[in-house]
């Protein structure tokens, strides 16, 4: 056993740090991390589905699934099994290649986005690609491929509902991607890095903890410095604005209520996946839920301190517990506590989005596009500029600089809101003065035309 633990291959695979190992060791490590990520990512889809249905049931005053297994926990599994055994219908006149490829194109990028998501602070085992220094860019690049799956599904199905759903989905997703990208820029300005792991570190206190009585390499301990250091609270209120913009865009990106126009069942049956059955449908379904989880996890990483606890002491077992060897303490800290915090934050956030779904009515499509282009985009852009201004002013005048920037932001917001109010008022009075009477008149005329003439 000791021989094995000390053999060079074992050390390459599990002990040495990443810059000292040959490529095949990195390959094996990547495979392992990939399996972990897949288990965490796709594995939590059933939990998520169950959670959503139960919570929706709770908020709508009914029970939700409660028959299969304790509290209906096995319901998603039963659903998956059922979907797998259903007939796989391929309608005639579909574009076969694209029709078969589309679910894969929708699912692959979602799984790929897991690559850069850190789940603990270990520099070798903390993410699938812990050393990738372009994390966020990779994420954006991969996430934007996803829309291809949707539009190809819509187009290849040769179904009018699918086509409309696909078009709606693609233009909605690309519109909200802008707000998303710009809100991430605000975070990048504050932190100055693209690597996801460093984004988390920038919200915490980082220490390197040596582990004396073990073979394992040094693990980087990222200890929470308190939730007030999270990016969402940095440069208040700009961090908060960025976070809110991100969260709204994130709901729209995943086509969830109240932005679920592409699947509006009252008008489009099921949108772009109307023609999909069996497991091909399940892939869209899985992709959507996995995506929802991933964008929430990114939100947690970017704005809410990632896998760290909101309070330092909650995030780790104290080193004073000397009756455990320090390697065990570290193991528990990294493998149990850090991912646990990630999941706690993640599910809190997701529960919030389920609440939004339960309580908010669906938008109209023009409202959706107006909101994305005329509200979210300028807000995010102004926010980026204001973050930069605040930082530049702080460099010049110290902390006072930030208050100047907030003052500028306040003036700007007041002006914009005032102008918007005036426009709204003008339009409303215009409506009452001109449009409504015409409408009434035409209605009267239309009714009169149909009525039998009375002598």
């Amino acid at each position, binding site marked *: 056993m000791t021989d094995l633990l000390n053999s060079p291959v074992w050390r390459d695979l599990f002990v040495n740090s990443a810059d000292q190992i040959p*490529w095949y060791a990195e*390959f094996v490590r*990547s*495979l392992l*991390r990939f399996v972990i990520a*897949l288990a965490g990512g*796709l594995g939590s889809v059933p939990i998520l589905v169950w959670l959503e249905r139960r919570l929706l049931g709770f908020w709508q005053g009914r029970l939700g699934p409660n028959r299969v297994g304790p509290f209906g926990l096995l319901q998603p599994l039963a659903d998956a099994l059922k979907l797998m*055994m259903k007939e796989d*219908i391929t309608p*005639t006149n579909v574009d076969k290649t694209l029709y078969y490829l589309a*679910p*894969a194109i929708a*699912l*692959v990028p979602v*799984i*790929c986005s897991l690559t850069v998501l850190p789940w603990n602070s270990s520099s070798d085992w903390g993410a*699938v*690609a812990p*050393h*990738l220094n372009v994390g966020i*860019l*990779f994420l954006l690049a991969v996430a934007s491929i996803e829309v291809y799956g949707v539009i190809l599904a819509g*187009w290849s199905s*040769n*179904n*009018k*509902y*699918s*086509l409309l759903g696909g*078009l709606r989905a693609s233009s909605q997703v*690309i*519109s909200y991607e*802008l707000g998303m*990208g*710009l809100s991430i*820029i605000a975070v*990048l*300005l*504050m932190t*100055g*890095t*693209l690597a996801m792991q460093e984004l988390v570190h920038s919200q915490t206190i980082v220490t390197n903890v040596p582990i004396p009585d073990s073979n394992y390499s040094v693990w980087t301990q990222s200890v929470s410095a308190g939730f007030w250091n999270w990016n969402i609270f940095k440069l208040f209120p700009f961090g908060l604005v960025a976070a809110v913009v991100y969260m709204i865009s994130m709901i729209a990106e995943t086509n969830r209520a109240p932005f679920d126009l592409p699947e509006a069942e009252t008008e489009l049956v099921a949108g772009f996946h109307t023609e999909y059955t*069996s*497991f*091909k449908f*399940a*892939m869209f379904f899985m992709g959507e839920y996995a995506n929802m989880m991933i964008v929430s996890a990114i939100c947690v990483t970017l704005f809410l301190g990632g896998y760290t606890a909101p309070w330092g002491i909650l995030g780790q077992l104290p080193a004073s517990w000397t009756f455990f060897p320090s390697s065990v303490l570290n193991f528990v800290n990294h493998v149990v506590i850090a991912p646990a915090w990630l999941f706690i934050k993640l599910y809190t956030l997701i529960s919030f989005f389920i609440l939004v779904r339960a309580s908010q009515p669906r938008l*109209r*499509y*023009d409202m959706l*596009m*107006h909101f994305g*282009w*005329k509200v979210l*985009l300028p807000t995010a852009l102004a926010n*980026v*500029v204001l973050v*930069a201004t605040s930082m*530049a002013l702080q*460099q010049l005048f110290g902390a006072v600089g930030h208050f100047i920037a907030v003052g500028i932001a306040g003036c700007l917001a007041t002006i914009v809101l005032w102008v918007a109010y005036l426009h709204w008022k003008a339009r409303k009075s215009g409506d009452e003065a001109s449009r409504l009477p015409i409408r009434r008149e035409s209605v009267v005329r239309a009714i009169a035309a149909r009525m039998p003439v009375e002598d």
Partner: protein
Amino acid sequence: MLSSYIPVLVMVAGATIVALALIGLSALLGPRRPSASKDSAYECGVTPIGSARERFPVKFYLTAMLFIVFDIETIFLYPWAVNYKASGGLMFFNLVEMLVFVAILLVGYIYVWKRGGLEWG
């Protein structure tokens, strides 16, 4: 340096395999009882008229074009944002440079808005 991309490769390959396997699985497991009406396009029971490959509103194209413009703007902002803090010297100078860039795009944005390029409905 390049070895940091090995996981990306593994991830993309793995995800592709998983996705293709799922498609294959669905084709293998389910029963197969095709019929003419089952295989026709689903339009709530009504027989479909014509092809679905029709022209669609130009608005969608416009949105795509505007997206390209503003997405490129965002991408150009990324390197600037990452180096903003670390570039040394006066941040104010970097700020002004980017303000010029944003201002040029803002002209385009205002133009599109005023000309009704963002109107739906």
